[in-house]
């Protein structure tokens, strides 16, 4: 793990090596800016496509079914009110939509493992653009063509939603890998913090798209989404430069990697030193294998931890508007607006100013637990709900964003991988894939829990349990990073003292 390799002078030798390089580290070019913007917008668009689906659900449920309330006089004329297109009532349609969510998450998590591997072996730009184009086509077929041609078939919807999951999964590993290539560890705390807001920004954008175009018919938000994805993919195709090496710029970290790092690793676990030796032997820039990536220090632990956390995070994403609508019978649009506050909280919480990663994550999650308890017992008051929802976003969505972006990038570019650099995409795929698998299980479990006890509070207790497990999984890493930081402070202190002593 050791975060301190590039972070600070460890030994006097390191200080000397690093000093001349200092200026180059913080010189961000136009390439950096455009990479940041393009990857941000690309992933935001992909996430917007998901949010659009979740926000037009209630309208789709209406369109797929006949009017539910059969009073004395059924509402006429039949062609306006009583076409049984797919289901007899909107309730049945809603159940099917829940199934679609779960199907999507499972195929997405499976796709992430595969896309991660693909991303390290092919041009990241091509994989990303292709993924976006396929997503756009699938969304177009799912939402627009089916409505225009009146193809209302369960098989059609399920097939295209599975394909959608697979196509969308190319996005995250690719954008993280590109970002990781361009931005060194120094900038990762703040830059990745801001950048990881792309998912939340995408959610907000998707919600806005749905609100703006839903009145023309539910197929138009899908159409707009698909068109914007194609536009975005086209621009990315002509713009993205996957790695600084492609334009001849020397990579920020590779130069640092050549400095003797074994001194630090000696303090670490023995398995790491072994890996370092192994990787240094291989000089080719070969991509890491899927199973080797699992064995990288921290990957398995963070994956497990992210699975639990993403379960909670995505449950909020999928179920919050529905929960608010069901519990307080608020208007759908109000519920959507308030659930956007959760995303805003996620953006705030994801920004890691100090660059401390997991050291911040653990306390944040511990604070989240009482907040979840408070949230489950809130009264019907929009202002209080809004505040608590933002807090939940900060302490659940924030850490989730941090793990998915900054921490994953750290894991994929750790010094253990000095020679074989092509691991970032695979590692991202593993962490996010396991996370999404957890989220998919959550999608199945939540309706079951709610049905079993007829009380949403038990769903929140389940969230608390999951958050607690996340904390437990991350604890060993937390302890290790704490030690490292303490060492860092100690050594800096002693170095300063040494310098002060020298000048005397």
């Amino acid at each position, binding site marked *: 793990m050791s975060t301190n390799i590039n972070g600070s002078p460890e030994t006097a030798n390191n200080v000397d090596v690093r000093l001349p390089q200092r200026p180059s580290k913080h010189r961000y070019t136009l390439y950096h800016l*455009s990479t940041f913007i393009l990857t941000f917008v690309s992933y935001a668009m992909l996430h917007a496509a998901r949010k659009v689906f979740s926000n037009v659900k209630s309208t789709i449920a209406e369109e797929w079914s006949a009017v539910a309330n059969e009073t004395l006089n059924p509402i006429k004329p039949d062609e306006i009110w009583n076409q049984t297109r797919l289901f007899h009532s909107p309730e049945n349609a809603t159940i099917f939509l829940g199934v679609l969510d779960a199907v999507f998450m499972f195929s997405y998590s499976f796709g992430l493992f595969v896309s991660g591997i693909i991303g390290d072996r092919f041009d990241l730009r091509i994989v990303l653009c292709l993924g976006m184009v396929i997503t756009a086509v699938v969304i177009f077929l799912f939402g627009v063509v089916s409505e225009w041609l009146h193809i209302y078939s369960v098989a059609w919807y399920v097939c295209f939603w599975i394909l959608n999951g697979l196509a969308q999964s190319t996005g995250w590993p690719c954008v993280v890998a590109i970002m990781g290539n361009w931005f060194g560890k120094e900038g990762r705390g703040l830059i990745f913090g801001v950048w990881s807001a792309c998912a939340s920004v995408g959610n907000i954008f998707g919600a806005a798209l749905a609100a703006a175009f839903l*009145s*023309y018919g539910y197929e138009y938000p899908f159409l707009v989404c698909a068109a914007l994805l194609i536009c975005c993919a086209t*621009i990315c195709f*002509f713009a993205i*430069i996957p790695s600084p090496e492609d334009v001849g710029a020397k990579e920020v970290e590779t130069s640092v990697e050549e400095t003797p790092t074994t001194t630090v690793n000696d303090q670490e676990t023995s398995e790491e030193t072994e890996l370092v030796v192994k990787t240094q032997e291989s000089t080719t820039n070969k991509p890491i294998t899927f199973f080797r990536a699992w064995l990288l220090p921290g990957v398995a632990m963070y994956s497990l931890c992210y699975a639990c956390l993403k379960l909670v995070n995505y449950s909020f994403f999928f179920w919050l508007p529905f929960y608010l609508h069901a519990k307080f019978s608020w208007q759908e649009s109000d519920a959507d607006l308030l659930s956007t506050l959760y995303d805003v909280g996620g953006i705030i919480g994801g920004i890691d100013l100090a660059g401390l990663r997991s050291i911040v994550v653990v306390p944040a999650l511990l604070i989240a637990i009482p907040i979840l308890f408070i949230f489950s017992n809130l009264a019907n008051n929009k202002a209080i709900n809004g505040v608590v929802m933002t807090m939940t976003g900060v302490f659940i969505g924030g850490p989730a964003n941090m793990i998915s972006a900054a921490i994953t990038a750290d894991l994929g570019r750790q010094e253990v991988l000095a020679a074989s650099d092509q691991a970032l995409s695979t590692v991202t795929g593993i962490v996010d894939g396991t996370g999404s698998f957890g989220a998919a299980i959550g999608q199945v479990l939540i309706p079951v829990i709610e049905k079993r006890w007829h009380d949403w509070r038990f769903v929140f207790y389940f969230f608390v349990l999951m958050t607690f497990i996340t904390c437990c999984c991350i604890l060993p890493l937390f302890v290790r990073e704490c030690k490292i930081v303490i060492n860092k402070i100690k050594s800096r202190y002693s170095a300063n003292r040494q310098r002060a002593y020298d000048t005397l």
Partner: protein
Amino acid sequence: MIKLILISSFFVFINGDFETESLCVDHNATSKSIINYCISQNGSLKFRCCFLSNSSNILAIDLTEMKLNKVPDLKEFTDLTNLTMVDLRLNPQLESSTQDDFFGMLSLDYLYLPEQYPCPGEKHVWQSINQTIDPKGILCMYQKDVCINSTNFCVEPNSYCATNGPNHFLCLCKTGYYGYKCLRHGQFPMGKFFGISITTTIILSIFFFWTQRRHVKKD
């Protein structure tokens, strides 16, 4: 979709002509009420049916003594908006079915029914209900607008209630709304949207290519 409507309406047209012919054959009108009414309105009497002065719209129809057990489904036959008077007396087996009877007969103001058949919607729908002696039956007079009295018929959003014959109503889309369940409003600005997005894409692609990928070194 439009094609389908056209075809089906064409069909109804042929059918309607044919069926009104078959409906208005065989028996001459016997109901005094129908005959008198037809004369007073300057209609042309053709067997059972009274046509509005030389048009194909039926004004009144005599369905007495037809051994009916249900009200014949007239809505397939012809335009019912002008049908003002119907006589169904002397049909002892006639049973009411609230779902379909008199559907779409908007101007039905004189409805003669056999004794066992109550006026559809009773006082809610008819201004006056009287017994008739010869032949024995009930006269339901002057249809009321069902929608005016009740507000809870069309509760679905964006719809309003429109009367559609005695005790029948339609929920139609409010002006501006259309489509299934009246969920749509306005027209998507297709040209504008694609115009803007395609232009922006081309401009940005050229801009980024010029500033970025142009510099990519190929191996």
